[in-house]
């Protein structure tokens, strides 16, 4: 099996250049899709039968929540690659993912809270999805906190990577137990976080935004990875040469 592309990717200078070239290819489509999707969802789509105009916030909430989980998985996989094959750039990718994923999580929590207010009358409810998002936020904070606790980058990388893998294994366990917990204590008012039945006019903008958010994440990740590589390789010779040209 041809693994040469994989090993070439592991070279910081190569990834630095590749990331620079790829970024616009993700950034522009992302901008188009997000703007288009938002217009379609916020303006064009018909109001929901039950929830009126308020449901439109799912166009930001659902993609954010989806991304927050996807980024965690990518972070965990990158961390595992870095740990097993001792690839520095994989650790750089994992480190770059964390703040992005945490931001998506915060966005999901805030939009989830805004969505819930008209329905529940309160700014917060301990429903399983929001609770899981909150726990995910703590997993991100733990990862970033552990990395921040070490001066030695290599130790931070490897300890953080192990934590990310342990966290990834635990995410399904935690999610299942939160669902179980919530099912025991069904609140009498049945305003739950159900997804409204979605005709295509409502669903399409959502899918468009999901794709747009994914491309947006890729673009931001590439920018951050370049910054990480610069920071880590600051003493290396190729940096001086590349920046001079």
């Amino acid at each position, binding site marked *: 099996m041809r693994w040469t592309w994989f090993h070439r990717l592991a070279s910081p200078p190569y990834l630095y250049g590749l990331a620079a070239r790829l970024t616009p290819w993700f950034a522009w489509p992302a901008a188009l899709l997000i703007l288009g999707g938002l217009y379609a969802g916020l303006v064009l789509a018909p109001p929901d039968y039950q929830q009126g105009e308020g449901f439109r916030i799912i166009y930001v909430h659902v993609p954010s929540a989806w991304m927050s989980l996807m980024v965690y998985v990518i972070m965990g996989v990158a961390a595992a690659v870095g740990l097993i094959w001792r690839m520095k750039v994989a650790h750089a990718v994992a480190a770059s993912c964390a703040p992005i994923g945490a931001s998506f999580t915060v966005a999901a929590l805030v939009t989830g809270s805004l969505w819930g207010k008209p329905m529940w009358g309160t700014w917060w409810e301990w429903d399983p999805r929001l609770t899981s998002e909150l*726990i995910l936020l*703590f*997993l991100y*904070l*733990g990862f970033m*906190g*552990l990395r921040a*606790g*070490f001066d030695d980058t*290599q*130790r931070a990388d*490897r*300890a953080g990577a*192990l*934590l990310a893998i*342990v*966290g990834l*294994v*635990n995410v399904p*366990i*935690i999610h*299942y*137990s*939160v669902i*179980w*917990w919530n099912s*025991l204590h069904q609140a009498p008012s049945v305003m739950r976080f159900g997804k409204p039945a979605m005709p295509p006019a409502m669903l399409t903008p959502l899918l468009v935004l999901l794709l747009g958010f994914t491309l947006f994440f890729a673009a931001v990740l590439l920018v951050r990875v370049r910054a990480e590589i610069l920071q880590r390789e600051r003493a290396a010779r190729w940096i001086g040469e590349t920046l001079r040209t």
Partner: protein
Amino acid sequence: MSSARMPAAAGAAINTAASFGQATPAAPALSAARLALARDLTLAFRKRGQLIQPLAFFALVTMLFPLAVSPELARLRAMAPGVLWVAALLASLLALEFLFRDDAYDGTLEQYALSGQSLTWLLFAKTVAHWLLTGLPLALMAPLAALSLGVAAAAVPGIVLVMLVGTVALSLIGAIGAALTLGMKRSGALLALLTLPLSLPVLIYGARATELAIAGNSYLAPLELLAALAVLAVTLAPLAAAAAVRISLE
């Protein structure tokens, strides 16, 4: 075991094995683990005073609730499962810092990693010792705290059983966090930040089982889930802790 003579004078050699091909066989893994366990228990009993601390903390935290909420036993009984588990969680967090700290500091962990024995197995033995010194006493003390919160005495066996299983899982999960934060000064808050999210399932099932036990109902379902978590922790946590220790030794 190769022959060895008692030295007649200070200069005599300890062993006369001509070639290392006949070197003594390594201690089997089980006796190595048993020695690691025995060492930790012996050390803990030489510093008996420190053993009380997590228990005292547990009792103290339990006591905070009547003072902060209400002395009415009916209200306390309703809160009791949550109070017991939160207190147990915090107390075990407190004790976790000392699981690997001293050994990392004086080079014992390094010798374990270089012993040729399975580091996973040795760390499992250390965690078992830690549980015997903190989790087990905590589980045995829980009835006292429960009674002080107005729980009926009939619920005590159930509470102890659930706590025993739960604290096993907590000790093992905590070992991962303790191993990851080795060498860090003042890692208490970070240790909590790392360990608590991973311990949430234990908290959920344990508190629910305790709640059912207090109400006098069957607590088998959540207890089984809790036991499954404990088994998973026993299998996987020492591996993760060993990997974390090796990372800290690099």
